[in-house]
């Protein structure tokens, strides 16, 4: 039986286009523009889902995505909210959270044992005996939950873009539309956004059987759509408010991050249900829900129904129902005085019986609770909030429209830092103190009559104009007249409960009472214990009632109860939207392509990609690393060090600067010489180390570790500001490539290509020369980090590949082999060189690593000096030493971070450890008790399993290095 009615002005369906879809295996038709909810309701389908906890049958409640009664899956997408997802041809839908289908859900028995499952039951039952908890957990998880994750959900790219505007208006109801026009007419760039398919807000459904709203809507929309200054986004919601007016607008195809100079929040209100027993049966719905079905989708909400209301809205709903052809047998007004206005006269004149001071005591279910069959009406005392069932009567109906009041959709206002106050005239929280640049209009601001909302929109628009420096007059907004749009306490108690407050979470009135009894009587605690407002609609239809109930329990006014924190996102937002494209910036050295072709396995060092090792067929990673290291020990290897930080320091005061910045001396450093540079922070902790080279009297060239490069340069720049020395500081990290050739044949290889002589006397260890290699001007350093003989070539990035290729050619006869960072770590370990950040941590001072030699305390000042004076007064607690395990060690291999113990006391830990083929031993670094630092001392390492391994302190280097190795 179809519940579709005749064409409604401005309806959202296109009757020319018919679609086919199925729901729970049954075929249905819909019009283009129908939502899943409206199409099914039009077809007479009533059970559209099963509730989360008790698996009760559910129909539409809000038809606006303020609840998740109607949640579907199509096998691909798990959480399709029927109220707002448009029907597409060929959809195959099923309700989520059922076992055996929505009608025959085998979990429906849970409803009957619900007394055993009071709020918080999982804290009380099932957790002991502990060994049974996994069993119960599995059962409970299966019985609850809102769908099955599809692990094959296709990844579809959703863009995130940024746009800018003068004014962002959130909500295109009458207030928002008016405000947008005011702004645009004055020349502002306005972005107007509305979550619904079409703009208009309540003008698109709240009509009270008249045409005023529809024609106003037409007029406003017509102007907005043709206005050059307004960019209208529908079917997009403002997900949250972020500092300085950044609001992400979530649409189907992605997120638009809007940065506005001013924001008007005209988001309206959520209708709150009156609470009575069985107010959740299919066919019982919010008044505005009935109106949406009628005016947007031309669907008759039910055939013979009653309206129960605690405010004047029920009268408007009754008029809309009558116009849609619904037989309205009665209007139950919970207020003793009823409604004294034209609305009441209209309703009565149209033949509806009005019962004042009455309530719906309980709705009566039809068979299987699949619908509503009637309502029990009785008198209700507002003062005591008591119903008197002794004088009840029953009315038959197949639907109940219920209205009690509104809660402001103020999440974004809260997030922006708005102070709200409770207004007694409207029984609603309204903005009291708005932050700079944030404005509000319409129902969310407590303006309810249409004329009031239009004025409020104009007022807000003018306030924005003045805020942005344009002139605009103050607008007077009529004060609210008539009965309160919201009722302070529309709750009907019932001994058998099942009077629902939160439909997402199946929370009843008694759950609040129980929670308070347990001591969870503060709104935040009440929320967590009852889970009210924690479902997918995040309290849109329930939070206000929850606050009122808690207020009653505590005997406190609503404003003393407060509200819970409103957090983004306004609606559940797909993770794919949040991820967007996902940028992963990578820095590549000039030789990256070469490494890739040579079989490199890359590792990420910050944003850099460095070759960790080079794959060889049929050889394990560990084997390859040993081979790469061995080739350096035995002949020659080549590594790409392009990621190292490189800085130039120019000018006469450069040396002075370096002496203050680093712990060592540089004033007397000769041109052509390099020195180790130890960097400390103000507390005397080792932060980085590197090499300072003097290229000229007033030009220094510094290399620092890859991972610290950016941070070190920043600190250099900061100290430069503070010391005000006249120097030129240049970061040339990306401008130069860096190639390191190491091993006993390094001199032979590099010598083939270098213009400068590499003899010891011409380029001693630690020297730097500006010369040419393979015809390219380079800075050539003789270093000793991974081997005794090694050359570091700093070459302009554009020529790096050329020099690399030339070196590979030159080294071919020597079996030159590229090695990666893994082998490099092993090689430096063999040399006995520590790595800052690996062998040191955030508290290591230089005395602990034996770096006294790199410190010159006799300088007038350097960063960390004063702290070292304090530290030096205390005994050192641990010292870094080189160690080896016994020859042929075959026990449990210790790992980095395994502890060094003396009896049960922790004395230190292992920081580096590795087997090396070059020495055929396990070698490493460890912190030990200062009394154990002498070579030959033995100390104990406790392995992961608790076993003790004995290590011997040795002198570095660990490996017997060939002359020039």
């Amino acid at each position, binding site marked *: 039986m179809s519940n579709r009615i005749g064409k409604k002005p401005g309806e959202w369906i296109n009757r020319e286009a018919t679609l086919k879809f199925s729901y729970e295996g049954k075929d249905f038709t819909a019009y283009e523009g129908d939502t899943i909810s409206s199409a099914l309701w039009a077809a007479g389908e009533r059970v559209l889902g099963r509730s989360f906890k008790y698996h009760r049958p559910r129909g539409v409640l809000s038809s606006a995505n303020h609840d998740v009664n109607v949640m579907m899956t199509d096998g691909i997408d798990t959480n399709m909210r029927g109220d707002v997802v448009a029907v597409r041809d060929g959809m195959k839908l099923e309700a989520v959270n059922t076992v055996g289908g929505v009608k025959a859900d085998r979990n429906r028995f849970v409803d009957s044992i619900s007394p055993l499952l009071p709020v918080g039951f999982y804290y009380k039952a099932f957790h002991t005996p502990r060994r049974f908890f996994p069993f119960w957990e599995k059962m409970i998880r299966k019985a609850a939950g809102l769908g099955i994750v599809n692990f094959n959900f296709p990844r579809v790219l959703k863009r995130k873009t940024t746009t800018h505007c003068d004014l962002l208006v959130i909500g295109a109801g009458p207030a928002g539309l008016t405000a947008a026009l005011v702004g645009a007419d004055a020349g502002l760039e306005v972005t107007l956004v509305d979550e619904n398919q079409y703009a208009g807000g309540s003008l698109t459904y709240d009509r009270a059987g008249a045409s005023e709203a529809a024609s106003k809507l037409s007029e406003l929309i017509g102007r907005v759509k043709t206005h050059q200054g307004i960019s209208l986004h529908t079917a997009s919601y403002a997900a949250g408010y972020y500092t300085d007016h950044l609001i992400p607008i979530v649409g189907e195809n992605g997120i638009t991050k809007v*940065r506005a100079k001013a924001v008007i929040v005209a988001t309206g209100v959520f209708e709150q249900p009156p609470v009575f027993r069985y107010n959740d049966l299919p066919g019982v719905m919010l008044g505005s829900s009935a109106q949406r079905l009628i005016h947007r989708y031309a669907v008759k909400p039910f055939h013979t129904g009653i309206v129960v209301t605690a405010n004047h809205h029920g009268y408007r709903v009754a008029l809309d129902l009558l116009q849609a052809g619904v037989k309205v047998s009665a209007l139950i007004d919970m207020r003793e005085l009823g409604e004294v206005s034209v609305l009441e006269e209209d309703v009565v004149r149209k033949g509806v019986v009005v019962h004042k001071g009455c309530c719906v005591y309980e709705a009566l279910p039809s068979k299987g609770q699949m619908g509503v069959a009637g309502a029990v009406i009785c008198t209700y005392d507002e003062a005591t909030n008591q119903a008197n069932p002794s004088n009840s009567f029953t009315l038959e109906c197949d639907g109940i429209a219920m209205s009690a009041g509104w809660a402001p959709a103020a999440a974004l206002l809260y997030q922006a830092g708005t102070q709200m106050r409770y207004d007694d005239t409207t029984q609603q929280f309204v903005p009291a103190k708005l932050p700079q640049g944030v404005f509000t209009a319409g129902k969310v601001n407590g303006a309810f009559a249409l004329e009031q909302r239009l004025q409020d929109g104009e007022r807000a628009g003018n306030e924005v104009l003045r805020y942005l420096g344009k002139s605009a007059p103050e607008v007077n907004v009529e004060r609210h007249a008539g009965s309160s749009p919201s009722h302070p306490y529309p709750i009907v108690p019932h001994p058998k409960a099942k009077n629902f407050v939160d439909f997402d979470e199946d929370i009843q009135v008694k759950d609040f009472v129980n929670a308070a009894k347990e001591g969870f009587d503060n709104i935040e605690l009440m929320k967590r214990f009852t889970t009210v407002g924690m479902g997918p609609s995040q309290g849109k239809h329930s939070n206000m009632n929850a606050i009122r109930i808690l207020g009653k329990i505590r005997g406190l006014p609503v404003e003393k109860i407060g509200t819970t924190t409103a957090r983004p996102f306004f609606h559940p937002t797909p993770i794919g939207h949040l991820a967007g*494209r996902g940028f992963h910036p990578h820095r590549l050295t*000039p030789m990256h392509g070469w490494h890739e072709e040579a079989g490199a396995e890359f590792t990420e060092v910050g944003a*850099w990609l460095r070759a960790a090792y080079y794959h060889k067929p049929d050889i394990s990673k560990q084997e390859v690393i040993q081979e790469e290291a061995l080739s350096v020990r035995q002949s020659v290897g080549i590594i790409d060090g*392009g990621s190292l930080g490189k800085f*130039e320091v120019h000018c006469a005061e450069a040396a002075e600067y370096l002496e203050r910045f680093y712990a060592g001396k540089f004033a007397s450093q000769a041109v052509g010489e390099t020195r180790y540079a130890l960097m400390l922070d103000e507390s005397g902790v080792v932060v980085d180390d590197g090499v300072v080279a003097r290229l000229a009297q007033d030009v220094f060239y510094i290399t620092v570790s890859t991972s610290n490069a950016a941070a070190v340069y920043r600190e250099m720049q900061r100290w430069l500001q503070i010391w005000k020395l006249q120097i030129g500081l240049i970061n*040339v990290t990306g401008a130069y490539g860096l190639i390191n050739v190491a091993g006993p044949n390094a001199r032979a290889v590099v010598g083939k290509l270098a213009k400068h002589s590499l003899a010891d006397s011409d380029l001693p260890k630690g020297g730097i020369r500006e010369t040419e290699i*393979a*015809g*390219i001007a380079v800075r050539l350093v003789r270093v000793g980090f991974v081997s005794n003989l090694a050359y570091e070539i700093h070459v302009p990035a554009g020529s790096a590949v050329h020099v690399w290729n030339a070196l590979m050619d030159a080294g071919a006869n020597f079996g030159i082999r590229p090695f990666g960072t893994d082998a490099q770590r092993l090689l430096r370990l063999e040399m006995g060189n520590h790595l800052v950040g690996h062998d040191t941590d955030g508290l290591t001072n230089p005395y602990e690593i034996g770096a006294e030699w790199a410190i010159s305390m006799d300088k007038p000042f350097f960063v960390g000096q004063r702290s070292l004076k304090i530290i030096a007064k205390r005994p050192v607690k641990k010292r870094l030493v080189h160690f080896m395990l016994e020859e042929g060690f075959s026990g449990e291999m210790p790992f980095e971070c395994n502890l060094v113990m003396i009896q049960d006391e922790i004395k230190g830990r292992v920081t580096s450890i590795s087997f090396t083929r070059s020495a055929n031993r396990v070698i490493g670094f460890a912190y030990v008790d200062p009394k154990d630092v002498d070579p030959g001392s033995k100390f104990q390492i406790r392995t992961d399993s608790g076993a003790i391994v004995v290590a011997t302190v040795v002198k570095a280097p660990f490996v017997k290095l060939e002359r020039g190795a």
Partner: protein
Amino acid sequence: MQMISKPTPIAYALKDISPKMGLLNGMDVVMSFGDDVTESKNRQLLGICDVSCLSRFAIKGPSAAQWLELNKIKIPPTANSWNQQKSGALVLRLGNSEFLIEDQPEGKLCAALNVADRKALTGLYKVERSDVALLLSGSQVLSLLSELCTLDLREKALGENALVMTQVAGISATIIRQSLNNEPVYRLWCDGTYGAFMWDTMLEIAVEHGGGAVGLSSHYKL
């Protein structure tokens, strides 16, 4: 010194394709990626062009402005602005006292500045740079930039000679808006080591919008 051609900083991003190559200022460059029709379409809709091969010279320090003026360069008057010399060379004033000069394809200004005497003044430091330089054109170019940069780069917001140092796709970059062959284009410079990433990222988005890569010939008659 030998004349070895240098690869462009985006070379790695081009490794799997074989576009029509050329040589400019010692750098291997892509002259065009495809036929004229496609290149023209891309250029006018959303074209990404690698112009890293243009000659550049960078200098900084308290005397940099003075030195440039001594070398007959008309410098931009304020920090974070740029201008164009008669020869067409761009002079970018990065902050207050750092300058980046970029020649037109066959310009010789940078070569001359490179060998000009710097000893007479103190407080003058030549900056070694390896930039990837991109030229972005087309009616949809702001769609690309709005996905990669949070700044308002529209004509009304980014002044005619304004220069911004900001983040694009998470990387530090310098952007200006200029007119080339009577078309509005955007220029972007960032560290060459990010070249392949920047190119790949922008190309992916450009292609989605119906545009794509364009070679040097699309913008310059050589």
